[in-house]
């Protein structure tokens, strides 16, 4: 099948806070809840550790979608971290949208350690959304695609 067009497989980077979402992802695993292998998780201590730089970097390096998962507001292990993350990401996403970059490529989702099912569902949905959008062209760095 040499001429068959390879189906688009998006690259998704998921930043997960150590205390809630990463544990939620573990729980999804423990419960054998499927989500696409396109999602790769990076563990961070808190959603507030995620710098907009990291998100842009991911797009530069070829990511098609970036999702940030943290504790539910009010449940932050560090009390207030996700509140700051929420503001930062709201503004960043709004700016990306303003620049005409597909806003659906970025997402924030609050996933607790108990929400394995939500984690898997979120990832399934996000991968589907990004797959629909197709390859990231507007924030790509062609040098990294050679």
């Amino acid at each position, binding site marked *: 099948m040499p001429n068959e067009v390879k189906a688009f497989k998006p690259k998704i980077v998921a930043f997960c806070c150590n205390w809630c979402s990463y544990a939620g992802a573990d729980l999804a695993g423990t419960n054998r809840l499927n989500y696409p292998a396109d999602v790769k998780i990076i563990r961070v201590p808190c959603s507030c550790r995620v710098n*907009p*730089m990291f998100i*842009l*970097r991911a*797009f*530069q390096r070829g990511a098609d979608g970036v999702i940030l998962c943290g504790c539910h*507001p*009010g449940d932050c292990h560090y009390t*207030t971290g996700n*509140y*700051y993350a*929420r*503001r*930062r*990401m*709201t*503004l*960043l*996403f*709004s*700016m*990306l*949208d*303003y*620049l*005409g*970059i*597909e*806003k*659906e490529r*970025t*997402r*924030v989702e609050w996933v607790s350690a108990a929400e394995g099912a939500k984690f898997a569902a979120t990832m399934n949905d996000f991968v589907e959304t990004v797959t629909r959008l197709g390859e990231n062209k*507007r*924030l*790509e*760095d*062609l*040098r990294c695609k050679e």
Partner: protein
Amino acid sequence: MQGMMIARAGELLENGTVTRVLGWQTGEFVYDITPAVFESAEELEKGFVYNSFCGNNLSKYLIQASRKEGKILVFLKPCDTYSFNQLIKEHRIVRENVYIIGIPCDGKTDGEFLKAKGVKGILGIREEGDNFVVDTLYGEKTIAREDALPERCRNCKSKKHMVYDELMGEEGEVLDSHRFDMVEKLEAMTPDERFAFWRSQLSRCIRCNACRNVCPACSCEKCVFDNPQSGIAQKAAADSFEENMFHIIRAFHVAGRCTDCGECSRVCPQNIPLHLLNRKFIKDIDTFYGEYQAGEDTESRAPLTNYTQEDVEPSIVYTRGGNN
């Protein structure tokens, strides 16, 4: 006004209140004015100028100047005082070493802006009523003052000084401006149109760093883009990604701190409307977290170092503006 300023500055030098004066100096032409430090009445007489071309925001110079020995007198226009306050808030200026005289401002233009209006070969400029009369190599030209002012002045946000030790002229007022009109227009476009708009703008960037270096909010000891350790250092934007990256991160770093002084757009040699990026953040902050004007005071918490439990979720971006 210029005469009063020179006289007052001379007095303050004379009586020892200040040892230096930060102001503007005349140039080769009527419009090429340079910020300068004056140390004597003679120097002031010789070169000090205040006219419709003194657009430079002098606040940022005080980061260094206020740390030097002795007190410095600075003339600040209303919009400059916002920057000054913001720098005070961030502990960048030593307040005790600065004596501020607030001066009125009716908007500042520059030679480049007049040329963009089709004026060639400027030899001299007179202000006659609401007009600029420009003497050029190719004859005289009259431009209405209103048309000769750049966007930042036509949409002036405030004639009120936020801080001063002494005020020249009357105390002004905070104005209702239309400064978000263009942002709204962009928001109303489709993402494709917006993308095309910004690509056409940012692709002209030559990474001269003038916007960054002039910006009073960009006062970092070392910018992440100059720091090889930061992982995002870049000298010349090698491709479209790096152009976007620089301007997004720069706007983000000054979000909630940018006073909207407009210097970035003024200095851009490529005429990129960089203030539209900053204003987007300002507008979003106002909408999401309540009205906030950076530099209005020296105490309040900046929006990005603050939160409320009821803040909007990032998903608001999906449901808002810019139809798909």
